[in-house]
């Protein structure tokens, strides 16, 4: 009798390789993906009682292949086609190539929208069920099923091979953005039925580790993984006893996960000197500086200002400037931070975070009345219940 959770982990790690074998052999990504899901389901039902087979991947490939050939036989019978057109069943051979990376690129195809890319990646590469993905994104299962089947229909004509070398960097950037989107979707959640939600941060880290194994020398892949590990380390501390948001400066650093921090810091420290610099590495470096500070006051703020300045060069945008204004305020005082903030007023005035940061800096500057008003403005503009609660509390504290 094997533990179901152990079986679940094993099945999820087998999923992309099994799917790769099927698609390589039969083509038809969409039908192969359905067959793989059915094989995973069959294994999940049978293995706990019957034990895990000696070659789990071969078992899954064989079951999925049988599903496919049954499907095609009945299709063929329905269309009164010759059964000769049905592919011969042969004993599954595990090829030496790992098609996982090809699958990542296919699921993150530029013709799909980002949330669809994320859903398809979780299902085809991650081996999650549609129900789990729907629960994680808080949409009805029928809605998610429709998105996934539409996405697969759209990919029907796509060749199953790695993108040409010239496109690979741009396509990898899309894959990394999707993994980061999955991670964030899991990280910001503060409520919900944990039992019925796939843990998206864990999934995102697992999938990013898989990409890193396939591309061990890529600095941005390493940077993204380090960023996720260092962010995940703070997860237990970001919510208070009543489920309220706790800002970084007030978090109990003893409850940060030391093991994750150690791994994240080691990874980014080893990557920065040898790889071409990029935005994920810079964000990981910023997270590492925070993680290594014994307290908020002892943070190396000048280094964080420098890192944000570099990040603005790689990915210019008002949100990066907004983050830099907080660090500038710590180094040069709140008025210097407010001046940086003014430079992005027109772009971000409708956004609650601009008002929230402004409120924070006004409070540091001792301008209580203005700060209270800015907190209220921020609270009115956010679409997040926990953030609204936090901002309203800050405003009432200043009354």
């Amino acid at each position, binding site marked *: 009798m094997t533990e179901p959770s152990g079986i679940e982990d094993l099945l999820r790690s087998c999923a992309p390789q099994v799917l790769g074998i099927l698609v390589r052999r039969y083509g038809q990504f969409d039908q192969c993906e359905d067959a793989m899901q059915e094989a995973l389901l069959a294994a999940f039902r049978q293995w706990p009682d019957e034990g895990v087979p000696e070659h789990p991947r071969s078992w899954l490939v064989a079951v999925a292949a049988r599903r496919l050939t049954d499907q095609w036989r009945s299709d063929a019978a329905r269309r009164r086609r010759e059964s000769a057109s049905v592919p011969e069943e042969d004993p599954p051979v595990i090829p030496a190539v790992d098609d996982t990376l090809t699958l990542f690129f296919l699921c993150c195809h530029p013709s799909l929208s980002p949330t669809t890319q994320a859903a398809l990646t979780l299902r085809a590469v991650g081996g999650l069920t549609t129900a789990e993905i729907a629960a994680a994104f808080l949409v009805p299962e029928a*809605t998610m099923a429709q998105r996934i089947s539409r996405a697969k229909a759209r990919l029907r004509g796509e060749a199953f091979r790695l993108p040409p070398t010239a496109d690979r960097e741009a396509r990898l950037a899309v894959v990394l953005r999707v993994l980061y989107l999955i991670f964030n979707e899991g990280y*910001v959640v*503060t409520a919900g039925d944990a039992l019925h939600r796939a843990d998206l941060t864990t999934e995102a880290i697992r999938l990013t580790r898989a990409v890193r194994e396939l591309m061990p020398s890529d600095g941005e892949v390493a940077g993204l993984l380090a960023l996720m590990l260092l962010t995940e380390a703070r997860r237990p501390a970001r919510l208070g006893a009543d489920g309220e948001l*706790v800002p970084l400066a007030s978090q109990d650093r003893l409850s940060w996960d030391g093991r994750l921090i150690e791994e994240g810091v080691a990874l980014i420290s080893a990557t920065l000197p040898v790889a071409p610099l990029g935005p994920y590495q810079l964000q990981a470096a910023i997270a590492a500086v925070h993680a290594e500070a014994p307290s908020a006051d002892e943070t190396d703020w000048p280094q964080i200002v420098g890192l944000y300045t570099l990040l603005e060069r790689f990915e210019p945008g008002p949100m990066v400037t907004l983050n830099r204004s907080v660090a500038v305020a710590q180094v040069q005082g709140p008025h210097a931070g407010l001046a940086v903030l003014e430079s992005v007023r027109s772009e971000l005035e409708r956004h609650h975070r601009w008002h929230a940061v402004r409120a924070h800096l006004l409070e540091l500057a001792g301008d209580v009345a203005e700060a209270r008003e800015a907190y209220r403005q921020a609270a009115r503009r956010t679409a*997040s*219940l926990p*953030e609204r609660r936090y901002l309203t509390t800050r405003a009432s504290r200043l009354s």
Partner: protein
Amino acid sequence: MKYLLLIHMNPTVFESLSEEEKNVVFAGHDAFQAELTESGELLGFVALADPASSTTVRVRGGAVDATDGPFVEAKEFLAGYYAVDCETPERAVELAAKIPDATFNAIEVRPVMAEAGLEM
């Protein structure tokens, strides 16, 4: 991002439409629902009865007071909504513009609050 597309209805305006025009509106809703379902953006929709059938409830000093009629007496009222989950605010506006009522009344696009938030 999740949004409610709120259909604000002026019954006088709607009544002024011909039978044919009304049928175009109903058919438009059917087509809109089919399109949203197909695109995987539909979370749900609700059509509301006329406010003439509303009851407004107040609790004052522990006593429940239920009176017939709407809370606000106005020319326009909420006739229904579509709940959608789409990629961008621009897409939510694009969807609102496809609702047939947008041509003679108005659709309000309101973000839905989420149980999620960043460290502030």
